[in-house]
């Protein structure tokens, strides 16, 4: 009764960590922006359902906001083309990591991952999974709460509706998260004894996700240590960023999961 259709969650952890590492070691906008495209491509091929699609959009929006905010920070010092570019690149790196995480969150089931966490990490992993699950739930709940309000004759249009929505929606989200945490606890989560109902083997699909990702990260690591490619483009003076062909190929490797595709449910 082994489920050959699903992918071992560890494969995605390896993918996300590798992609995150690549974003970590470079500020080259070519590589970083490509990572956005890669994350989008992989998400498109593997997203689980509508709820997670919403959460990906949230992460994407968050990433864009992060870039804008970090770039705007330059106004706290001397403003020059070089400084602004530098600020922007730092923000872009941050945003890239957020988008990668958005893909990771959209293609995996966080609670499935929590079960795999080592015993002493069960509680923090659960807290993180709960925090993550609030966002998509929240978006879904907004619709329901608005319906409820409308049925009671409360009609507030536009932005002014937000305060009236915020409390019941957040409260509902918190309640749901609380109930879930409670029931996991009551069902013995984290008690230490463990077995697996349906062990997840490493399928070909999982390997195709994980192995190219490791190769990509290794390539960037080699570039970082060996210095044979520019990973941090010059900003003073500003120059055209470089795109090393080998490193581009490495980023292409991170897109392989999007090609592998998800088996139909």
């Amino acid at each position: 009764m082994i489920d050959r259709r699903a992918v071992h969650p560890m494969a995605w952890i390896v993918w996300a960590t590798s992609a995150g590492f690549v974003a970590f070691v470079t500020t080259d906008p070519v590589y970083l922006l490509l990572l956005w495209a890669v994350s989008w491509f992989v998400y498109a091929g593997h997203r689980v359902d509508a709820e997670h699609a919403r959460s990906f959009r949230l992460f994407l929006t968050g990433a864009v906001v992060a870039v804008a905010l970090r770039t705007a920070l330059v106004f706290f010092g001397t403003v020059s083309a070089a400084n602004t570019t530098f600020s922007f690149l730092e923000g872009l790196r941050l945003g890239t990591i957020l988008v990668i995480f958005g893909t990771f969150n959209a293609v995996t089931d966080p609670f499935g991952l929590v079960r795999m966490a080592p015993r002493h990490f069960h509680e923090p992993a659960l807290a993180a999974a709960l925090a993550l699950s609030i966002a998509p739930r929240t978006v879904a709940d907004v619709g329901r709460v608005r319906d409820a309000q409308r049925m009671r004759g409360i009609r507030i249009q536009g932005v002014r509706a937000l305060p009236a929505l915020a409390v019941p929606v957040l409260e509902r989200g918190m309640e749901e998260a609380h109930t879930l945490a409670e029931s996991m606890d009551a069902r013995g989560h984290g008690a230490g004894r463990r077995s697996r109902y349906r062990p997840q083997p490493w399928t070909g699909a999982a390997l195709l996700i994980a192995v190219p990702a490791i190769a990509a990260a290794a390539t960037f690591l080699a570039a970082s240590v060996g210095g044979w490619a520019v990973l941090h483009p010059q900003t003073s003076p500003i120059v055209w960023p470089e795109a090393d062909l080998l490193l581009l190929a490495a980023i292409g490797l991170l897109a392989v999961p999007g090609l592998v595709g998800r088996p139909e449910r």
Partner: protein
Amino acid sequence: MSTVATIVLRRPVAAAFVVVAALIPVTVPAVTGAAPACAAATGPHAALVIDTGAGVRSFCVALDATIVSGIHLIELAGAQDHLSYGFGSGGQAVCRLAGVGPQGDDCFSDYPQYWGYWHGDGHGGWTWSSSGAASARVGDGALDGWVWGSGDSGASHPKPPLTVIDDVCVPESTPTATPSPSRATPAAAAPSAGVRSSLAPNSPGPSNPENARAAKPSNEGIGKTSAPAGPPTAGALAAAPGPPPASAGPGPGLLVALVLGVALAGGGWLRIRTSRRGRSSA
């Protein structure tokens, strides 16, 4: 209402974990300003030229970040090539370089003499720095110059000798013959009598061998840091071909990257459309 906050507050470990996880995306970029320092002639480098009045020393300095301050450039030169230095005003100003200059915290205690700060303009000339060493931004391919002398502004303070960064940090693939034409070309019709006056405290002649010897520890085979032949051009050297500029136009890699990016974005969009259609028809 008892909430998830209950779990988090009652389990400080969980709370710490969630907070740290949230902070990581913010702190990571700050920490990774420090890219590994590179000992070879690849990776980010800047040049530092120190003219004490009695001699000139040049340093090719490997940068440990994309941008460093003028102060940090001196520190790096100290760490890599044993340049001695002393800072004042709480580490914000340069008092002493290569053994010349006042000790202590007041960098102007030998006034009217002090260390003048210049930035290389890329063609051999120099611009008087408009900011202090602590706030100056030095990046890959930049050139910083310090001259000990008197004169309250760029108009009166002595300049470092004519230098381009490729003299100090020799690029591996560039034929060393290339830099010479740029300085041999007499760009402006400056009267030869006035040629040396702006470099008066500098006495470039006797300092030449010293240049070569001083520059050697940083890089091999440079002897031509300040060729007495070329007149100082103060940046108007437009005619010369010069060494290959660091900023070439967009390369072929960018084109490949663009194609790849469009393919990924388009592919993703197609994927989503077909799966949505599949779902709605199911």
